[in-house]
């Protein structure tokens, strides 16, 4: 790809998010979603390998189908209610179609199977962008779908995601598929947070991005695609191996890491709102996914490789670890940051 064109795609993706954030008309939201999809597709095929092209085609087909459903839903809403603003639409077929389309775009259960196949075919960097940044447009649209009927529907999908994400990742040995199912599980929490309050959803999303970025980057640096490779990470590069293990513990929502506080925040609001059933279902789903998070952490932190080799050799050191390590350390000072903030008098 030409080095002069590639920044354009990044700019287009940012513009798509800004377009969605600043508009309430469904046509411009659709435009923003499509712009984001079309700008992201060339980034997926950056390395031009057959696996990445396959993943890109699958991604494009699903996104195009969802966009078509979104547009059709908007037309139905406008045709039946003569209202074009999403905020004012009171639950109808068109709105349900729009919600389903956004769920498909995000990879929310039960439309989550494409995420696994697509992420498996990509490298870690585009996969990271897919699972973090590409969620923003869909979440922006979801925060504007705010009627009672839609809340129940969205919360149902939100409850299903952690369960299916947990069950799907149980038998996985491919790390990328595991991360896809993990992302699906977190998406359930995200959507529940967005339904309850937009600020809550944004906070949880920010925490999820901070947790995920170092995990993806370290896995990319370790070039680990299978659990067996993580087993040997402690031998090749103990610092990165340990930080990946801590990152996965944080993703699993274990205290005192940062990942726990996102869930704690959401659970507090759910209990305050007497949504105990939803809280219990989310916790059950998280417990299931905690099983494979602990498995990965066990491999990274406890198991030593087959050979005891000098770890101080220069060729074993990998570059660009300072920034990433700092982000992982943030996991461990989450107790200070978030716990201290929450203890402040109201």
């Amino acid at each position, binding site marked *: *790809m*030409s*080095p002069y064109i590639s920044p354009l795609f990044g700019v287009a993706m940012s513009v798509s998010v800004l377009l969605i954030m600043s508009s309430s008309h469904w046509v411009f939201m659709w435009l923003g979603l499509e712009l984001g999809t079309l700008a992201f597709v060339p980034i997926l095929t950056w390395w*031009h*390998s*057959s*696996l990445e092209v*396959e993943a890109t*085609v*699958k991604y494009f087909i699903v996104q195009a189908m969802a966009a078509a459903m979104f547009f059709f839903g908007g037309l139905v809403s406008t045709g039946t209610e003569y209202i074009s603003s999403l905020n004012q639409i009171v639950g109808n077929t068109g709105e349900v179609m729009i919600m389903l389309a956004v769920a498909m775009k995000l990879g929310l259960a039960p439309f989550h199977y494409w995420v696994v196949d697509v992420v*498996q075919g990509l490298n870690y960097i585009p996969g990271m962008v897919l699972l973090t940044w590409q969620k923003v447009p869909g979440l922006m649209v979801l925060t504007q779908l705010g009627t009672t009927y839609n809340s129940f529907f969205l919360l149902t999908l939100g409850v299903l995601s952690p369960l299916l994400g947990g*069950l799907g990742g*149980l*038998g996985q*040995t*491919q790390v990328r598929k595991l991360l896809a199912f993990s992302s699906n599980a977190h998406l359930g929490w995200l959507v529940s947070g967005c339904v309850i309050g937009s600020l809550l959803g944004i906070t949880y999303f920010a925490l999820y991005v901070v947790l995920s970025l170092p995990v993806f980057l370290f896995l990319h640096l370790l070039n680990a*695609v*299978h*659990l*067996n*490779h993580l*087993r*040997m990470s402690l031998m090749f590069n103990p610092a990165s191996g340990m930080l990946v293990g801590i990152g996965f513990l944080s993703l699993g929502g274990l205290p005192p890491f940062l990942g726990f506080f996102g869930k704690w925040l959401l659970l507090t609001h759910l209990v305050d709102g007497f949504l105990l059933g939803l809280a219990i279902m989310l916790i059950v789903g998280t417990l299931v996914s905690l099983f494979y998070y602990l*498995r990965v952490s066990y*491999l990274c932190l406890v*198991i030593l*490789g*087959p*050979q005891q080799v000098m770890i101080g050799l220069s060729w074993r050191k990998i570059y660009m670890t300072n920034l990433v390590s700092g982000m992982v350390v943030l996991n461990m000072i989450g107790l200070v940051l978030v716990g201290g903030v929450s203890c402040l008098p109201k």
Partner: protein
Amino acid sequence: MMTIRTLRSPQLALGVRVCGRCWRHDGPRHQRADPLGTDGARTEAKQEVDGAQTAARPKGFRTKVAEFFRPARDTINEVRKYANETWTFMKRDDLEQLMFEDSRVLWKFRGPEDIDQWMVASDKEMGGKSEAHLTLSENNTAFFHGVTNLEVPKDGVTRYSGYAAMRSKQQQAAFNRRSQMDFSPFNVLNLRVRGDGRSYMITMAAEGYFSSQWDDLWCYFFFTRGGPHWQDIHIPFSKFFLTSKGRVQDAQCPVPKDRINTIGITLGDKINGPFELEIDFMGVTMDLTHKEEFAYEQYYQGPRRKRFTKKPLLSTKDW
């Protein structure tokens, strides 16, 4: 005396003893599955006759009902198979082995059941004269043998001939889906063979999403010594090169180790004559000392970034 029995069979009226089940032939009453009453001893010819007679016989109501519900029964069986596969995958009893293994034996040819997992092909399918067989040797190993013949069949289309191949059978999952093998924890393919001095080729077929990828094969050669001693062959996955329909591709890429459909051995060294290859086992290993990811040049697709360097005002290059 006319009775109901005599009305059913005229033979009875004549005093001939007939079968009380079908009333069609004389002799003792036959079992339900043996209408000809041969006491269970059926010859092949009789089976053919029975088959023809069965086919010609109009189908009974029970048969028609069974045939009507057969697709539903097959679907239910496939659903059960799929549920069983999903449960086995989630339970994952082999997870500890998968997480901690450094090597795995794929095929250890010790009995007919191991040989049955492979199939053999040669140019005989196209009209050629090569022959290939895969049997169990007296040492309890796989014995791939036959004759390669370079004579081109005279069909006006085929230009080359003389190959023999053995390939593992495609593993099937529920609903006739293809099941792949996952070699991503490993980086070396191991073989223990004893050959005849000829050159063979290991081929691996991966699952392709597009139809243009369905003929993709990753290949590498191995050379046999021809002596009585066994050879241990180690081929890293990084050495396999991509071919499609027998042609080496310009745009090379490494083997997608997580979606291998079949592994095969091919002989096509343009030599007329017999061949013999004995295979003890095939396996994969993780070799920590092997750091190479891919051995072949990959063409960069797209314009490269130009380095902006200051050119001197007076350059001797322009003279």
